[in-house]
């Protein structure tokens, strides 16, 4: 269990800060694990013949898994004391197994609301060619010092 990162505090976060990168190299095995864990058994995510039969280049990574990767990116940044208020992403481009996916985020706003210290971020997944296939945004609550 590697989650022993130091707590990030609201006081130390500023607009423009980049949060620590999360690298994911998704194997076909991981897509199968995700299919089982999520219950999404659409064959385009594990059956290459089926995927090509509906016009895809091959098996593609589940949107839900990419969404969950961004959830992991946020969780690892804010844990243990922060919480995710809102986060979402759009599935603009397809991603394929065995390619490195970079999950990234940049702080866009820090503010207080109803006594809570909030941080807005742009988050996204980019492929090895630098294309943002999965852009999104998030709001998290952080503890103060």
């Amino acid at each position, binding site marked *: 269990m590697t989650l022993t990162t130091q707590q990030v505090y609201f006081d130390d976060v500023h607009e423009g800060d980049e949060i620590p990168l999360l690298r994911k190299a998704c194997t076909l095995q991981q897509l199968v*694990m995700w299919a089982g*864990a999520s219950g999404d058994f*659409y064959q385009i995510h594990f059956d290459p013949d089926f995927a090509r039969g509906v*016009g895809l280049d091959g098996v593609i990574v589940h*949107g839900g898994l990419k969404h969950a*990767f961004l959830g*992991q990116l946020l969780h690892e940044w804010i844990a243990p004391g922060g919480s995710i208020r*809102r986060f979402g992403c759009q599935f603009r481009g397809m991603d394929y197994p065995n390619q490195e996916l970079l999950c990234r985020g940049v702080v866009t706003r820090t503010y207080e609301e109803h006594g809570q210290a909030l941080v807005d971020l742009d988050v996204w997944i980019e492929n090895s060619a630098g294309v943002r296939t999965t852009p*999104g945004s998030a709001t998290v609550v952080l503890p103060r010092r």
Partner: protein
Amino acid sequence: MPDSIITAEMQSLVGHEVDEGVAEVTTTSCRLFARAVGHTDPIFFDDAVARARGYRGVVAPPGYLGTPVGDPGVRSKIPVPTSIAGLRLPYRRTLDGGTAYEYLEPVVAGDVIASRSKITRYEERVGSIGPMLITYHETSYTRQDGTLVARMYGHIIHY
């Protein structure tokens, strides 16, 4: 722009809430989900650690609520809300366009969550993949004690 494929029947579904069923959040399903994503924080695996960190039990990882685990209905395709799955459309293919969650309360193993979904609007567009219908939908998640724990906003693309 081709003729609209949105029928009066489809239009009448906008805003109509559909029961998506009730599912128990279990320790095992949280662990499976966390393992599949690659989470390493023990709050997603270990009840004692989760409780020591102030949670009521093993925590459901971000994104967990959107998954249809526990639904006995066979879903071989993309897991779309029932209200959308029932649409009769001239398009053969489906893509999940995106999803956003608003989290109001932590969701943990032992919670029993009732989901209700509705279509909020349609949009027709011609994109790089041809003519498409974008259906925007919203799902609410309510715990057994009546607390609204999360909302999900998404859009499904048929083309």
